[in-house]
């Protein structure tokens, strides 16, 4: 295993100008991305964004129409999957049902040529170590059908780690599990990663999962890379409305930009427009970037439709005169009766070049 490499170190995998078309639909367009050694990278995107195809091409389960995959200094584009030394974890585990847990984990080692295969005792020791790592030490002789979904996914991970892969690839690894198990496994995967320093790429459509778990997030949309950066970077400085919208609830407001200032309904907002952005634009804000305000302070006006409490906050739906409904998040202090008129002040947000 590649030890505790400094995160953000050298490039482990380089994806260069990848294109892929299935039947007639293009799934990846001229896609490039660098994966750093030892990092935990999330490929985040809606379904159909090409993220799973990208993962499968890196693994060697699919092949690109154009472009290259480079592992370290080696061009791996035409390398058969068997020789890529990747660990792949499938959404539905793909465990071998007729093999015990230990046999599943040892599978990759036993599949090697005799000259490269570790001795029986060594394989047994490695399986034992991996079972300890995934905290399923007593389960060596069980069969997959006797395990829960979360346990099966841990076995699948151990099986992938057993071959000491150059990179660990996880395709929606928690997608088939229920909410509580998902949360536990997320934390656990982060721990495993911290201990092994294994370069890891995982695919998810769940923003929370990507932001909580990864060192860097690559946001994909329609086969293109929208943005790649740390969770903080993509949240604080999203490069496009697509990224912003995909990362959480967003309110869209008509605004006018001029000389760096952004105005809504003629009133100045704290949002700054980049140089050269002039004219009617859209301002995007999170629910907590709107505050209730009295007449002169407010950028927006509307009527409370309903409100509900969630985890110590309250969310209020406000109908705006032009027919749109915005959701505002506020501290759970004063309540708003349905039908009461309110004013809203924008205290933050983003604008993007058209």
């Amino acid at each position, binding site marked *: 295993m590649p030890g505790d490499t400094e995160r953000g170190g050298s490039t482990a995998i380089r994806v260069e100008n990848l294109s892929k078309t299935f039947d007639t639909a293009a799934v990846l367009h001229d896609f490039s991305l660098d994966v750093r050694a030892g990092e935990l990278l999330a490929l985040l995107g809606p379904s159909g964004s090409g993220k799973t195809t990208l993962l499968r091409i890196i*693994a*060697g*389960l699919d092949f690109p129409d154009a472009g290259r995959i480079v592992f370290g200094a080696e061009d791996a584009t035409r390398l058969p*999957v*068997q*020789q*890529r*030394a*990747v*660990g*792949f974890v*499938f959404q*539905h585990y*793909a*465990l*071998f*049902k*007729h093999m015990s847990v230990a046999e599943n984990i040892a*599978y*990759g080692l036993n*599949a*090697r040529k005799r000259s490269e295969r570790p001795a029986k005792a060594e394989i047994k020791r490695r399986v034992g170590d991996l079972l300890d790592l995934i905290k399923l030490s007593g389960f060596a002789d069980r*069969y997959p*059908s006797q395990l829960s979904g979360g346990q099966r996914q841990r076995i*699948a991970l151990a*099986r*992938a780690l*057993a*071959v000491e892969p150059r990179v660990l690839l996880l395709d929606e690894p928690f997608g088939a599990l229920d909410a509580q198990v998902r949360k536990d496994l997320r934390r656990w995967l982060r721990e495993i990663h911290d201990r092994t320093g294994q370069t890891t790429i995982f695919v998810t459509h769940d923003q929370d999962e990507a932001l909580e778990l990864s060192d860097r997030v690559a946001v994909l949309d329609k086969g293109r890379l929208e943005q790649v950066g740390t969770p903080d970077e993509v949240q604080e400085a999203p490069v496009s409305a697509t990224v912003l919208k995909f990362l959480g609830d967003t309110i869209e407001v008509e605004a006018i930009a001029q000389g760096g200032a952004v105005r809504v309904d003629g009133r100045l907002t704290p949002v700054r427009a980049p140089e050269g952005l002039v004219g009617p634009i859209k301002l995007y804000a999170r629910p907590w970037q709107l505050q209730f305000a009295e007449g002169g302070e407010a950028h927006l006006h509307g009527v409370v439709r309903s409100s509900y409490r969630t985890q110590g906050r309250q969310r209020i739906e406000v109908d705006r005169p032009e027919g749109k409904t915005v959701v505002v998040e506020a501290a759970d202090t004063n309540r708003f009766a349905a039908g009461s008129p309110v004013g809203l002040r924008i205290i933050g947000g983003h604008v993007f070049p058209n």
Partner: protein
Amino acid sequence: MAPPIRTDAPTRAKRRFLRPSVIPGFGLAFGYTLTCLGLIVLLPLAALVTRASGLGLSGIWEVATDPRVASALRVSFGVSLLAALTASVFGFLIAWVLTRYRFPGRRIVDAVVDLPFALPTAVAGIALAALYAPNGLVGAQLARIGIEAAYTPVGIYIAMVFIGLPFAVRTVQPLIAEIDKEIEEASATLGAGRVHTLVRVVLPPLIPAVLTGFALAFARGVGEYGSIIFIAGNLPYVSEIAPLLIVIKLSEYDYGGACAIATIMLGISFLTLLAINLIQAWSRRRFGYV
């Protein structure tokens, strides 16, 4: 017959037998089913069992060890075993090709597999006899390389492969279709070559189905009559099958002899059925699926 007012006791007894349901018609459907089953299937089979038990084990043994009967049983079971083996191997290959590969005419080939189910056995029988006779299309070619097919156990083998093949194909085909391609991909990512993947990952879960198909083809071969008798030539001690011997005994009014042979054959086919059930129960326990 039914009392107008139900007392508690029969209700309770009945509850144990039948789980209450709002769906009507159980009594009628169940009664009709049992009546038909009893009259058409169980009663005649009981007649055979009664007759056979009249002979006693020693009586059956005596018939079974008669040289001509013993020879016919050997031919029936031995050749059927070989034929079932052939049908299983090629049946698996055909099932694999039909489910995994796309090629022009696949649907027609798939339909052809059921031909032995649809074609009356007597028709298959005379066709095979004509084809494999020494002057037949295939028979002449075989004769040239020194193989006599018609009127020998080879002919019986060919007929048994013919009728056993669909069983072998149709029992494994749905299971091949159900294989999750991800497990093959998982095996490949772990470094295993295609052959290793097939032998270690794809084949083992299919073994119960292959065995079931084998057992069905075997049982069918042992009992088969129509498609065999024309090609077999029916030479005593050489190419005479057990079902034919039953017919011969019957025509000689030797009901006891016919029953003894029938009992032995029934016994074997029940053992085969039992074996199939055990295979499936084992497979379900071990892997959680059939």
